[in-house]
């Protein structure tokens, strides 16, 4: 009797409209490979998610290595000895291989400094040729897959879940993987291997279980006399023939859509013709440019080339122009790019045909409803009514509604990316039939699918992609699952990608120059140099224009004014790093000043001062905790939460001091303004804070976890980073530091001024962004934020020294903020806009003469 390393006992899970798993019982022994075989949508992925603790089953229990999984928490599953290799990568693309591997280790087990060498040692035994210092983003999908596997093995798991591990691998990779799997089983690791590739399974597995429509159809030991055919019929459940619509037998010879020489970043020189009545398939291993090529036909990817539909050239610069030319595209990302989740079924279906029931822009409600009812019936959409939000429907019905909208636009060529992803078996047939029926007389359809069986079942012709080019065309009898899969696995295209075209013209040059200095830049010191140059220029100008500027008293003044801005900029950075934003810092500073005017009053003793300072800081921490909790646990948007907080704090500040009044203890103020010679001590404190902050951020595990959370929260969570705590801590630190900034501000103004902090939210964001922080999270440095704040203070100082109106100061701070975020994120869009303007108007290029 061997040990059971994983047991799933009677697990069930239901999603809206789909019974994903129905009382499934499975186990995996130590040292065996247990394969789970099933089609797309059979419940394999749900099963894996339950086993790894990411999804809670409706009923049933999971045991890992003999211990019950008491809470459905991936970290607990991991501790019990289960590791998962995910199909969609769970790596942080912006970090290096070594950093990703490091994040997956338990805290303290690997020294931060030795990370690189340690990672190389981990990669070595697998002979995979991946540099530990490489960014994940620069790796191929297959290399990423191996990093995933190496990462999963770091913890020496008792059981390893492999979810379609060969999807992105070529033959060589598959061989390497098989080698690793055998090594592991020899060591006694149990492996659950999910795949729908039968030959692979028969080669590796000891036992195989079949899953169909969420039901366990049996477990069989893999023996030489196990019939492949039996397995397939169990998996498919009925004849493959009846799952698909019968293909027409006649030849297709009337071209409808012709694409010539389409080239873009991920595909090169793609040319093909789709004929009337024909369903053309795009096949290829994931990431070979087939999806991008399809999207480029309607302008969802940048591309050059010519497209012609129904004999007329089509402008393929945007989906709108492509639709006007008769081409419609239905995305595989249904929730993100095809449906309007919160809107009703009716509004979803009729969006492309509003003109048909309107008169001078006014819609007729009864007619609209009649149209919608018509579509619902014709495409067999099952829903409680036309006014239910479409997100409440099952995947199949959502897809039918999208299909109805696409076909009723009157488009001649319909391009469908993954037509039946997340669609239950019953609805699939309806969808295939609807496609066939709607293109019969004067339409054509192109399908991109990762499911070779589906392509074989519905397509009349299949184009196989490899490395962005069409490498094979399969017609007639050749269109079979086996031929499709084998052709994209065996193709060896040694050609490397053509060099990516450099962007030309003004925008390109400007982009390149600013790309270097832009904020949120990957190189942390670049924004600092940019700021240094600006600072020198401004300082020179000011010194030239006014004699006062270089006086010691002015410099001291400037440095004292820097303290509150510098601290609040670093506070804001904490939140920006985790992809948040806190606009309440300014009003928190005001409230701190007001409270200080009460508790650290003129007659306060030392004890009272200490108590008052602690009270202010505690208030900050409490505010931060409230912000963080509402955002994380209440699920409320960060911007709205901090706006609400801004309002509340500002309200309390005004309740406390309706008008500026109440002196702040002078001794306390003087303490915060202590100086050594000309240099205020606060400046030294600021520099020390920035250095400590940067060491924490860039040289410790905790800092790395913050960056990972900011870059890609989901990946960080899967690596065991406590993302909720990291996020809440960021708001806590931000508010705590803002309260500190408020104390410095109080020492400067000296009275309880209720709105003194109102401009600090803006300057904190601007300073942090100028210093290299990215609004998209993960990037930035404390030194940069401090330097940004210094530049900000300098500008304000110079404006007042030169005797300009206070209005100029306000305007300058606004402009600096705009410039900062423009440099960070606006440039690429700016380039797009410029390109769009200068692009030749007629993008509808006719085909070159044959």
């Amino acid at each position, binding site marked *: 009797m061997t040990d059971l390393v994983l047991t799933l006992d009677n697990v069930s899970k239901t999603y809206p409209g789909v019974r994903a798993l129905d009382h499934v019982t499975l186990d995996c022994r130590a040292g065996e490979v247990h394969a789970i075989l099933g089609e797309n949508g059979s419940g394999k992925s749900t099963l894996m998610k339950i086993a790894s603790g990411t999804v809670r089953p409706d009923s049933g229990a999971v045991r890992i290595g003999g211990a019950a999984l008491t809470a459905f928490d991936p970290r607990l599953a991991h501790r019990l000895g289960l590791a998962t290799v995910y199909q969609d990568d769970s790596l942080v693309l912006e970090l290096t291989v070594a950093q990703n591997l490091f994040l997956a280790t338990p805290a303290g087990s690997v020294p931060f400094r030795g990370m690189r060498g340690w990672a190389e040692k981990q990669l070595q035994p697998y002979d995979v040729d991946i540099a530990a210092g490489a960014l994940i983003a620069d790796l191929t999908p297959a290399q990423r897959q191996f990093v995933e596997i190496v990462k999963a093995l770091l913890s020496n798991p008792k059981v390893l879940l492999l979810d379609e591990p060969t999807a992105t691998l070529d033959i060589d990779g598959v061989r390497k993987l098989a080698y690793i799997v055998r090594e592991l089983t020899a060591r006694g690791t149990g492996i659950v291997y999910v795949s729908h590739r039968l030959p692979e399974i028969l080669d590796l597995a000891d036992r195989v279980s079949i899953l169909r429509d969420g039901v366990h159809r049996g477990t069989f030991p893999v023996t030489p006399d196990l019939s492949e055919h039996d397995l397939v019929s169990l998996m498919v459940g009925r004849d493959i023939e009846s799952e698909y619509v019968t293909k027409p037998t006649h030849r297709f010879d009337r071209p409808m859509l012709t694409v010539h020489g389409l080239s873009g970043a991920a595909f090169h020189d793609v040319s093909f013709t789709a004929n009337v009545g024909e369903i053309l398939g795009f096949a290829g291993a994931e990431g070979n440019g087939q999806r991008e090529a399809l999207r480029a036909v309607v302008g969802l990817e940048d591309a050059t080339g010519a497209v012609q539909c129904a004999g007329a050239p089509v402008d393929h610069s945007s989906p709108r122009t492509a639709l006007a030319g008769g081409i419609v595209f239905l995305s595989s990302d249904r929730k993100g790019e095809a449906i309007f989740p919160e809107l009703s079924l009716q509004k979803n279906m009729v969006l492309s045909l509003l003109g048909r029931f309107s008169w001078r822009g006014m819609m007729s409600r009864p007619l609209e409803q009649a149209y919608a009812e018509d579509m619902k019936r014709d495409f067999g959409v099952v829903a409680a009514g036309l006014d239910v939000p479409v997100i409440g429907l099952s995947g199949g019905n959502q897809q039918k509604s999208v299909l109805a909208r696409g076909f009723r636009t009157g488009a001649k060529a319909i391009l469908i990316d993954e037509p039946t992803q997340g669609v239950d078996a019953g609805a699939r047939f309806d969808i295939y039939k609807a496609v066939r029926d709607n293109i019969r007389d004067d339409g054509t359809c192109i399908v991109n699918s990762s499911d070779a069986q589906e392509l074989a079942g519905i397509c009349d012709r299949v184009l196989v992609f490899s490395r962005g080019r069409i490498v094979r065309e399969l017609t007639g009898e050749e269109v079979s699952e086996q031929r499709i899969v084998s052709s994209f696995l065996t193709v060896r295209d040694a050609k490397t990608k053509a060099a990516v075209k450099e962007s030309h013209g003004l925008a390109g040059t400007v982009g390149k120059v600013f790309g270097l200095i832009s904020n949120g830049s990957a190189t942390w010191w670049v924004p600092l140099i940019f700021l240094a140059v600006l600072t020198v220029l401004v300082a020179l100008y000011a010194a030239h224009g006014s004699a006062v500027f270089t006086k010691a008293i002015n410099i001291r003044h400037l440095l004292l004014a820097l303290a509150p801005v510098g601290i609040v900029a670093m506070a804001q950075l904490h939140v920006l790093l985790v992809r948040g934003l806190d606009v309440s810092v300014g009003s928190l500073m005001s409230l701190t000043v007001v409270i200080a005017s009460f508790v650290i009053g003129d007659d306060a003793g030392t004890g009272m001062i200490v108590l008052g300072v602690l009270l202010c800081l505690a208030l900050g921490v409490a505010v931060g905790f409230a912000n963080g909790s509402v955002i994380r646990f209440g699920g409320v948007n960060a911007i709205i939460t901090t706006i609400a907080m801004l309002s509340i704090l500002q309200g309390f500040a005004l309740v406390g001091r309706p008008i500026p009044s109440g002196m702040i203890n002078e001794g306390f103020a003087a303490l915060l303004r202590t100086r050594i010679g000309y240099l205020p001590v606060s400046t030294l404190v600021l520099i020390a804070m920035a250095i400590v902050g940067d060491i924490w951020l860039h040289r410790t595990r905790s800092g790395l976890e913050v960056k990972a959370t900011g870059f890609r929260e989901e990946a960080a969570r899967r690596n065991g980073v406590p993302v909720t705590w990291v996020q809440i801590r960021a708001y806590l630190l931000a508010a705590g530091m803002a309260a500190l900034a408020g104390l410095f501000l109080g020492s400067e103004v000296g009275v309880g001024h209720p709105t003194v902090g109102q401009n600090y939210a803006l300057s904190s964001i601007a300073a942090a962004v100028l210093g290299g922080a990215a609004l998209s999270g993960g990037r930035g440095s404390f030194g940069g934020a401090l330097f940004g704040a210094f530049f900000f203070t300098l500008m304000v100082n110079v404006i007042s020294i030169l005797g300009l109106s206070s209005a100029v100061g306000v305007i300058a701070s*606004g402009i600096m903020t705009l410039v900062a975020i423009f440099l960070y994120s606006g440039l690429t869009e700016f380039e797009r806009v410029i390109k769009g303007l200068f692009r030749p108007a007629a993008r509808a290029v006719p085909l070159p003469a044959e």
Partner: protein
Amino acid sequence: MGTPHRSTKPIYPVDSALPPRPRALPTAPRRFVLPKIQRRFAAIWVALAIMLALGSVFLPRSTDISTILSVLPFAAFLAIATMGQSIVIMARGIDLSVPAIVALSSAVLLGVSGGSDARLWPAIGAAILVAVAIGAVNGALIAMLKLNALIVTLAVGAIVTGIAIWYRQSAAAESSVPPALADFGSARMFGVPTSVLLALLLTLVIAGLLRKTILGRRFEAVGANPRAAYATGVETMRYQAGAYVVAGALYGVMAVLLSGFIRDPTLEVGTPYLLAPIAAAVLGGTAISGGIGSMVAVAGASIFLVQLDQSLKMLGMPTSWQLIIQGLAIAVGMWLSEASAKGGHKR
């Protein structure tokens, strides 16, 4: 299923031609369908009714007709600003430049008119135009350059505030609105303040545009899912930028009415309109995730907030409590709307 409707015409331009249909046009359903009022939009009316009922029992002064009439113009101003903010929120944005726009708009009104009736109309035109122009800048930066809405409107707000300060410094010291506008501001029609009637009219017009026109439907789609709208062939950018322009126009109208009402507006005139419109928009059921909003409901929320504020004032609480209440309203409103959205999904 899947009866194909095909025509012999080569290609349809989007949304224009009606394809010949093999069957007769579907007949309109005979039953009269009452537009279903969603729960999220109805909630604020219930809250308003409860507050008025409580007020009439415990604080009868607060529901006096004279109190209501004195409070209503403020509700009208807030409602107009809130509609602007709601439209921006429906397009997945946020606008923190409202006080600055209102301040500059009213400064321009004073500056151009010079307090004389002769230049009243050019002054009103200029005031609204300035607001529209600032909205256009916001829209261009946010929709075209895809910059963060919060930061852009905060920064543009700072710039506009600076310009307003500078403009008021350089313009004549004259700081009263033309008498005709002041008369209009305090006038009543059928016993109702004119600004209230105007706000009502604007509410109905905008609600109608959003519900009944192609423009409104596409705008809703862009807010609900911009990527899907783009893939479906809608000019997303135009609708997103347009939201800020329309909002700007509303702020401009509001600034003119408000200036007429107070007669001698200062630069602080817009300050209350930073947070109150956001609070009213959220209370009126506008979804921060975009697309969903009702102009009628946010008008109701504006009345609610102003009446609540008035009642608190009558109870002797300082006006600053208003900000605290608004903050709590935003937080609680958002939390409820998130919770109801999640509950809806589970069903």
